[in-house]
């Protein structure tokens, strides 16, 4: 520790800290623009100049390391003179038209100009004008306002991983721009809006729709990926106008993904279901809640009476709240059905009954940064978990070795140690090779089932990297969890982490992937899982928040099962044509912004939230709807007065973290499927397609990540099939789709191909691909 003095106050700070960090520790504010605690030091705005004893000139507080005995004066005459001088320079070319600027009222420059600016400018010359740039559908530019702090540039380079913005030209003509003809396409692009200290980068969907001081602020939790980012939902007149990050160093730090930031647009979608509806004689009618609930109760009671409770299936969105899931499973179990599942995209359920507990990340999210060796298995990491990818990106920069075993060679913008790309059917075998190689390096016996496995060079490289570390983790991504041999992958990961003495875990697919287990929204021993209840079609379904035709592993099968059912009761914030086709009753329930509830994130953290706005139209919180429905069905135990009551019953109290987290499986078979030949399909869940809300967010749907479907395959596969990149091709895999072919430059496994970015009516893993 070093002893210094700031404005006469003595304090101890860690060696290597800068003056601004020390001042922060003391609660002293030093004005600044370019400095940001998560970005590298640029020291270019010069606003943070302070006086340092014995230094001949003012020093930038952001870049000057403290030295023992240093005396700093942040408000001395010299310091304030320097700060005022910089403010004058910043303002000479900055438009002084705050009343028409979208940033007005929440602008760092405006705020500091009050403290350090003059009331009139001495600058009488012409002001600089900078042409605006098209950064895509999310970020709007007003570059004449730019003060060239380069926070946005450093963000894209350092946090998002690829320098999509740069400062071109020099001197007074310097301007921030993307590559010529390109937009900013990172899945984290919205953060540059927050970072911009002036109104140069603003939110395209939000700008000019409200003033910051007109907005009410509510804390909330992101309903999208498993991280559980904390949100500030800003509302006006009971309408969500904007979503900003709520800083939480343990989760989202100060960032948000674009999905989390802009999906609120879907809340105000024209497809919102605002009134209960029932289908009578094939005709939809808007009805009152009494009628709709009676209708739903009758329908379910009839099926239960006639065919038994097991004829009812419950399909729950993993983005539903813990309380909603808990009540649906309680209701269905009350009706005698064990057919409840929220793991809609999974295809291998053979681990059910063998699990020791709730699958989770296996560690705290904040501990990811402390790992020195990581193997990611089966994950479109950057798109499925942008902020976890970001954490790993920083780890890799600090020297952690990150490797990936996956079926698509997406650029993760992470410095990877080993990249192993294999066809989906080969993933278990390749992971087994790593297990074998690690066992050999460690001189440990290996499971007899793996006796015949021979480790290849890539597996040996991964193994060498893993055993050289002290804190290892094997992270199974969404693709691994949805894999047809997910249980085998899990068992192998368990074996591997056992050998390494590290941890293994699942990157939570959705906001409530852990919460679903905690809410017991999984089938009992006699029940059918998500896949089985579609294969063995039920008489009736209760659908909560999901659109099974889009959210299930086999959308076409889901559609068929729902269509043939006698009664489908849908609780959803949205309506769609498909829903109108298969449902009997539509109950409008609140999205996350209009209800209270909780999400349990991938590390098991229970995060409750309250409604930010009133329910839209006749919409009601789902937990209330379910309570009434259960009462109508005379299912006991639904005397809840609040969502907190529900949570308390579901979790046995109000814990900060759910109990029973355990990734272990007992008796998991390490059987490896024989290698297969043929063209395999690698389909991701496109980032802006993963749930009902984001599918209805117009700006996100225009983003580059929402581009039209395309098949990607490498040159060898294209040549083998007689196909030409850039042309349309017919894809046939139980269903048929017409897609554009893109050549993958990366050496994707020759037999694998990817249909990316949109769901396709394709059932089989095995596909044929022919010229269209």
């Amino acid at each position, binding site marked *: 520790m070093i002893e210094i003095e700031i404005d006469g106050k003595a304090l101890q700070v860690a060696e290597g800290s800068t003056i601004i960090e020390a001042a922060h520790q003391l609660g002293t504010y030093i004005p600044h623009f370019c400095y940001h605690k998560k970005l590298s030091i640029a020291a270019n705005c010069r606003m943070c100049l302070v006086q340092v004893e014995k230094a001949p000139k003012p020093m930038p507080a952001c870049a000057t390391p403290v030295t023992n005995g240093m005396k700093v004066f942040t408000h001395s005459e010299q310091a304030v003179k320097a700060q005022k*001088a910089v403010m004058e320079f910043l303002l000479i070319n900055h438009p002084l038209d705050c009343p028409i600027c979208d940033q007005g009222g929440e602008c760092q420059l405006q705020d500091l100009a009050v403290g350090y600016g003059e009331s009139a400018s001495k600058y009488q010359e012409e002001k600089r004008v900078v042409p605006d740039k098209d950064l895509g559908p999310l970020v709007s530019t007003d570059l004449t306002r730019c003060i060239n702090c380069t926070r946005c540039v450093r963000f894209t380079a350092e946090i998002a991983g690829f320098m999509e913005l740069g400062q071109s030209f020099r001197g007074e003509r310097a301007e921030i721009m993307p590559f010529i003809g390109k937009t900013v396409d990172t899945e984290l692009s919205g953060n540059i809006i927050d970072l911009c200290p002036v109104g140069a980068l603003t939110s395209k969907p939000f700008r000019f729709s409200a003033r910051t001081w007109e907005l009410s602020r509510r804390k909330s939790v992101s309903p999208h990926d498993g991280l559980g980012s904390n949100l500030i939902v800003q509302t006006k007149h009971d309408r969500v106008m904007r979503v900003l990050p709520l800083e939480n160093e343990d989760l989202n730090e100060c960032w948000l993904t674009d999905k989390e930031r802009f999906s609120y647009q879907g809340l105000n979608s024209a497809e919102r279901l605002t009134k209960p509806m029932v289908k009578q004689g094939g005709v939809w009618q808007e009805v009152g809640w009494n009628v709709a609930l009676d209708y739903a109760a009758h329908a379910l009671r009839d099926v239960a009476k006639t065919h038994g409770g097991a004829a009812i299936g419950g399909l729950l969105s993993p983005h539903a709240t813990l309380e909603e899931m808990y009540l649906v499973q309680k209701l269905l179990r009350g009706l005698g059905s064990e057919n409840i599942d929220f793991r809609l995209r999974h295809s291998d359920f053979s681990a059910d009954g063998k699990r020791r507990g709730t699958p989770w990340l296996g560690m705290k999210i904040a501990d990811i940064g402390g790992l020195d060796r990581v193997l990611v298995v089966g994950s479109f990491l950057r798109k499925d978990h942008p902020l976890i990818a970001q954490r790993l990106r920083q780890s890799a920069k600090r020297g952690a070795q990150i490797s990936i075993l996956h079926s698509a060679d997406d650029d993760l913008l992470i410095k990877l140690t080993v990249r192993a790309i294999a066809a989906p059917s080969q993933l278990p075998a390749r992971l087994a090779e790593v297990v074998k190689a690690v066992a050999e390096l460690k001189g440990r016996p290996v499971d007899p089932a793996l006796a015949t496995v021979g480790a290849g060079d890539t597996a040996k490289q991964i193994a060498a990297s893993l055993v050289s570390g002290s804190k290892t983790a094997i992270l199974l991504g969404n693709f691994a969890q949805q894999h047809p041999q997910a249980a085998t992958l899990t068992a192998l990961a368990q074996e591997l982490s056992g050998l390494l003495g590290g941890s293994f875990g699942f990157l939570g697919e959705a906001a409530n992937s852990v919460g679903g287990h905690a809410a017991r929204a999984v089938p009992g021993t006699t029940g059918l899982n998500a896949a089985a209840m579609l294969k063995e079609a039920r008489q009736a379904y209760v659908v909560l928040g999901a659109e099974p035709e889009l959210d299930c592993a086999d959308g076409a099968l889901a559609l068929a099962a729902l269509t043939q059912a006698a009664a489908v009761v849908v609780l959803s914030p949205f309506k769609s044509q498909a829903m109108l086709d298969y449902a009997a009753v539509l109950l409008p329930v609140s999205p996350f912004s209009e209800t209270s509830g909780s999400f349990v994130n991938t590390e098991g953290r229970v995060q409750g939230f309250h409604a930010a706005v009133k329910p839209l139209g006749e919409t009601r919180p789902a937990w209330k709807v379910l309570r009434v429905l259960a009462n109508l069905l005379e299912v006991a135990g639904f005397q809840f007065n609040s969502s907190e009551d529900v949570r308390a019953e579901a979790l046995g109290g109000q814990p900060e973290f759910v109990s029973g987290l355990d990734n272990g499986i007992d008796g998991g078979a390490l059987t490896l499927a024989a290698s297969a030949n043929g063209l395999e399909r690698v389909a991701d869940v496109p980032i802006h397609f993963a749930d009902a809300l984001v599918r209805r967010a117009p700006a996100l749907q225009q983003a580059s990540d929402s581009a039209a479907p395309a098949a990607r395959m490498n040159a060898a596969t294209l040549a083998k099939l007689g196909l030409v990149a850039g042309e349309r091709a017919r894809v046939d895999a139980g269903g048929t789709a017409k897609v554009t072919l893109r050549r993958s430059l990366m050496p994707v496994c020759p037999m694998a191909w990817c249909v990316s970015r949109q769901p396709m009516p394709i059932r089989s893993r095995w596909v044929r691909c022919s010229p269209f």
Partner: protein
Amino acid sequence: MALIDTINPLLTTGWSRGDAGWRLKDYEARGGYVQLKRVLASKMTQDELIAEVKKSALRGRGGAGFPTGLKWSFMPKAATEKYVVCNSDEGEPGTFKDRDLLRFDPHSTIEGMIIAAYAVGAKLGYNYIHGEIFEIYQRFEEALGEARAAGYLGDRILGSEFSFDLFAHHGWGAYICGEETGLLESIEGKKGQPRYKPPFPANFGLYGKPTTINNTETFAAIPFILGMGGEAYLNLGKANNGGTKLFSVSGHVNRPGNYEVPMGTPFAKLLEMAGGMRGGRKLKAVIPGGSSAPVLPGDVMMECSMDYDSIAKAGSMLGSGAVIVMDETVCMVKALERLSYFYFEESCGQCTPCREGSGWLYRVVHRIEHGQGRTEDLDLLDRVTDNMMGKTICALADAAAFPVRSFIKHFRSEFEYHIENKKCLVNPDVQRAGSGFFRASSTAGAA
């Protein structure tokens, strides 16, 4: 015009034959690479070498005048990956000495760099050559080829244990790339913008590795220092100002060009060597060290001698040794306008005071020159320059401010006249006559 005049030629020994004397064989005939051979053969230690350079009181010839031996001694001994970089990005208006050094005698710089690399333990070096002298870059590449072929560069130089290779890199003409850390950024392929210091290049230089970066002339002096010994070199000049120095004399003199004179030579002598004032006119002002150095009135300058200390005492800087001579036909407002435009144009745009201030200065001076000055403008310029100085990452803001402040300080009446009367104190016809552009032929002959 290779060499016009000199006292004690060292650096310019090889210049007398003009473009005919730059090749390796010519350099060797002049005693080139003898010092390198001696260093390698005698297995001189790094400390001995650095001590010799320290003894010579050689100070950085790029402008800052930092003691070279001291700079070399900052290089961490333990580091394995180190670089030496030569700054030939000679962009300062008025300076043209490195260009001629590399043109007429590139091997002295190469030899100097190899010896420097030996002294600091570097394996790799770069010479960053200004983008606007491309033919010089080409010549240097050719010279490097010769040196490589002769075994002066590469693995195990001349059979010794020492390996070093040197590459040329040409910039694209940005003045800011002459700032050493901006230069390093540029070599790395990034936008040429100075880095915040500390850390200094000796700890965190090229690609983040310890780096010694010196001016061309500094490196070129090394073989001569070793040849005559540090003490003898020091004695050529005066205390704390060792050796000889190249001065690029330009402006209203009869024979503009590079002159090598011992440090401490009176300015009057240098002016005399340069053929005296053109047309016998009166000396009005001199910028003694490149455009960023404060201007000095002619009479003050005539009392100065050409060394770091004397010029500093007079209130300016020796800088890179670019002596810009102005006679009585010069309108100081116009001259300043041109200089201010240069800094406005060349600011990298990184730091707020420089990015915004350099344009502000130019616009105000431009306005005064064009008859739209206001009475408060001189105070404004004083305030803006005061706000720019010492508040930026590199010294470009200071470089932009110094001329403005010194021009106004020494020639305030001309500025006031301009503002009041909307025209030049110096009659335009006189200015035209002095510029020489409108005369059919130049008077005094060049060598």
